[in-house]
C-alpha cells in the first residue's frame, strides 16, 4: 500500500560523552563543524528532509546526553524510534566498550516490538584523529555479533562518510517503519478531507 502521507523517521543517537553525537548531527543537517559544542543537557533534535529510493522523508535526529546517569530520562525520548545510531570514538577504547550497554539500555527502555530485528547503525567517529585505538576489524566483528549491524567510520570534523552513514540510517529506519506498518494493515490510511488528489490505489479510501 503506497502511503501518501508524509513519512517521519525518528532516529536516536546514543554513545558515551564526547564521542561526537552533537557534531555528527550538526555536520549532517547543517554541514557545519565547530569544536565549541557544549555538552548536551537533556535532549534536542534536528530535522532534515531527504529522498530515499524516490521517496521524500523527514528524518528527525535526536541527540541526547552521554553521561550514564542521565539515561533514566531516556525512555520519553526513545519512544517511537525507527532506528538507533550508536557512536563511539575510534581513539577512545572505553567508548567502544560501552556499546553493549548502550544497545541493551536502548532495547530495554524503548522496548521495540521485535528487539532482535530493530535496526541499529554503528558509527566509529573521529577517524581524523591519531592514534587509533579500535581497528575497523574489531568494530566489524562486534557488528557481526549483533545480527550484522551496518558500520561506518566517520569524521564529523571533516564531514567524512557522514552523508553515507545517515543515508544508511534513513534506509534502515524506513525499512523498519514499513515492516511495522505491515502489522497494522487493517487500518486504512489517514483520510484527508481536503485532499482532492485521488490516492493511488489502496484500500479504505473513500475519495
Amino acid at each position, binding site marked *: 500500500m503506497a502511503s501518501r502521507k508524509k513519512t517521519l523517521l525518528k532516529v536516536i543517537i546514543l554513545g558515551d560523552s*564526547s564521542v561526537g553525537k552533537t557534531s555528527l548531527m550538526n555536520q549532517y543537517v547543517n554541514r557545519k563543524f565547530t569544536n*565549541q559544542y557544549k555538552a548536551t543537557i*537533556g*535532549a534536542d533534535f534536528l530535522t532534515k528532509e531527504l529522498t530515499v529510493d524516490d521517496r521524500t522523508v523527514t528524518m528527525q535526529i535526536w541527540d541526547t546526553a*552521554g553521561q550514564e546517569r542521565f539515561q533514566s*530520562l531516556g525512555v*520519553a525520548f526513545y519512544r517511537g524510534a525507527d532506528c538507533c545510531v550508536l557512536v563511539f570514538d575510534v581513539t577512545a577504547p572505553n567508548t567502544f566498550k560501552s556499546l553493549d550497554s548502550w544497545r541493551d539500555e536502548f532495547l530495554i527502555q524503548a522496548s521495540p516490538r521485535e528487539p532482535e530485528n530493530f535496526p541499529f547503525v554503528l558509527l566509529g567517529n573521529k577517524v581524523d584523529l591519531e592514534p587509533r585505538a579500535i581497528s575497523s576489524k574489531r568494530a566489524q566483528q562486534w557488528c557481526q555479533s549483533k545480527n550484522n549491524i551496518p558500520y561506518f567510520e566517520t569524521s564529523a570534523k571533516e564531514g567524512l562518510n557522514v552523508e553515507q552513514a545517515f543515508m544508511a540510517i534513513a534506509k534502515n529506519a524506513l525499512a523498519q517503519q514499513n515492516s511495522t506498518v505491515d502489522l497494522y494493515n487493517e487500518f486504512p490510511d489517514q483520510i484527508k478531507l481536503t485532499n482532492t488528489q485521488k490516492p493511488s490505489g489502496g484500500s479504505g479510501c473513500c475519495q
Partner: protein
Amino acid sequence: MGDSLNDCIEIFTQDGVLLKQAQASYMSYINSIGTLYISESLNSSQKKFIEWKPNDITVDSDIQDQEWAVVNTIQKRTRTLSGNFPPDYQNRVRCIMISLDEVKSFRVANKYRHLTFYDGKSEALCSFVFQHGNCEGLIKGVLGTILKTSVSKRDKHLYIVYDANTLEIQQLDRSFAELNLQSEGSAFWKMVKNIKEHPYEATFEAFAKVTDYVYRSPEQREIDARECEDLNRSISEYENTTTTTHSQGDYEVIAKVPELPPRKDFPRLRPMTVEQWRGHLNFDGRIEDVDSIKTLVFRGGITPSLRKEVWKFLLDYYPWTSTETERQKLVKAKSDEYFMMKLQWKSMTKVQEDNFSDYRDRKSLIEKDVNRTDRTLDFYAGDNNTNLQMLNDILMTYIMYNFDLGYVQGMSDLLSPILQLIGDEVDSFWCFVGFMNRVIRNFDIDQAGMKEQLSNLHTLLAFVNPELATYLDTHDSGNMFFCFRWLLVWFKRELTQEDVMRFWEVLWTGYPCENFHLLVCVAILESEKDNIIKNEYGFTEILKHINDLNGNLDIAQMLNKAEGIYYQIKEADHLTDDIRMLLGLPLLGNQNSYGSHEQSPFEDSAELSNGTQPCCSVENVRISPDEGAYERALVASFL
C-alpha cells in the same frame, strides 16, 4: 485495622528516624524525629505493621533496649532485632500505624537513608529519613524476610511487594463481605428468610447486590490481576504525574476550578549599589541588616563591580555575621584546606590512577567538559588558557571534596560564571561549593532530585494554570521533561553570562519563597501557553519550542511575573498544603479532616486562613481547620 495495639511484638526498631511525608492527619509531625518500629500482631491474624512515634511523647527506651542493642561508637544509635517486648511497651503512644498489607512497594534513596512506602495507588503512605545509619538492614534483614519483594526493573531503588498466594484468598473473602451476606450472620439469615417468604423479590435483591459489586468496585476486582509489572507502572506514573487536586486525601476538588486573586506587578529595581552595601557594614565590617541586603539583591541584583564581594556571602562562603578580621582568618584556613585537597589528586601516581577506574573516568569527563565549556567567551577562549586550567583544577578538587558525587555533566556550567567573576581559584572553589550545596540533588545518580523537581513544577503549574497543565497532560508532556535543561543548570544554557549572573544572585537570596526558580518556570510556560496550545504542539514540538527559547528570555520580565505568581498563590483561598510545602509556607495542618470530609465546612477554614471571605466560587473545596496544628506547622520548616 482492628488489632489491639497492645497485642503486638516488635520485630525491629530504629531510632533517629525523621518523618518526611505522611498522610494529612500526621502533618504536624512532619520533620519530627522519632522511632520506627516493625511489629507483629499476636492474634491469629499475625498482621504486621509499620509504626512510628515522635520522640517527645514517651520515655526514651534506649536504656532498657540496651540488652539487644548493637554497640556503636556513635552516640545514641541503636538498632535492634528482637522478638521480645520492650519494657516500656505499654506506655507508648502510637503515632503512625500502617498495616504492611497496605504497602505495595517501597523505595530507597540517598544511600538507604531515605525510605518511602507506597500504597500502589500512586500515593506515598509515608516517608522517613534515617538519621542514624540507614535502612539497609531493615530492608534486607526484616522486610526482605516478611514480604515477598523484587527490585523493579526500571528503578533499582524501588522494591515491589507482591504476594500472589494470599491475595486471591483475601479477594474471595472481600467479595463475600461486599455482598454483605455473612457479616455477623444476620444479613445472611434475613436473606434466607426473605427468599422463603418472597422468593422473587428477595432473589432479585440479592442479584442486585451482585451487580452493585460488579459495577461499582472495579478497583477491588483488579487486585488479583495486579502483578509486579502493573505496580511498577503505577509507581512510575506516580512519579510523572501531579496529585494537586486529590493529593493527601484532605482536599476534594469536585468540579469548578477556583480562580487566583488578580496578579500584581512587581517591577524590578536598580541593582544594589556600593554605597548601599557599605551603608550596611558596621565599623568592624559586620553586616547589620542581612534581610535588607537580601531584599535589595532580590529586587534588583547587584551592581557588577560589587558582585565579587557579595557573592561570597550569598554562596555561604563568608558567614553573614562575620567581621572583616574573621573573614581574613577564614580565607586563610579555607585556602589551606583547598590546597590540601588539591594536593591529594595532584600527587596521585600513575599506578594509583591505573588502579582507580572511577577516578580516571571522572578525570577524563572533566577534561572533556572543560574543553567545551563557554569557549565562545573571551575568558575561556583560545588554547592554553589558564582559566581553563583553573576550571579543571577546581572541578578535580571538588571530586576530592565530595567523593560521593564526583563530577556530573552540568557542573562545569555552574562553575563557569563563578570563576569568571571571582577570578581567584580558592574563592571560586568555595563559592562553587556553596552553589552545589543548593542544587546537589539535581545530580542524584538516579535523577530522583530532577524527577521530583519536574513533578513539583507540574504541581505548581496545575495550580496556577490548570488549562496549560491539562493540555500538557493530554499531549504526552505531563512529565515536564522539556524543562530539564532549565532546572539542571538554572537557565545557564538559556541566558547570556551577564544575565545568568543577575538571575542566579537573585535566586541565591532565597526570596521570596523556597523553590522560586520553579515559579520562574511557571511564568515562562504561561507566556508560551498560547503558542503551545494554538499550534497544537505535542511532546516533540513543545520540547523544540522550549529549547529554542534559548537566548530570547527577558530575565526582568521572568522575575517580575514569577513574583506576581507567588503572591497570587500565597493569597489564594484554595491554597493547599502540598503547594504550601513546596514554597515553604506555613502549613494549615488539618488533623481532623482526614477521612472525615463531611464534618468540616469550608466557611470556617476560609476565615481561619486569612480572615476574609473567599473572593471566588470555591464551594466545592473542603478543608478543615485546626488551630493547634496550624500553630505547630508555623514552626515546622519544610525543606
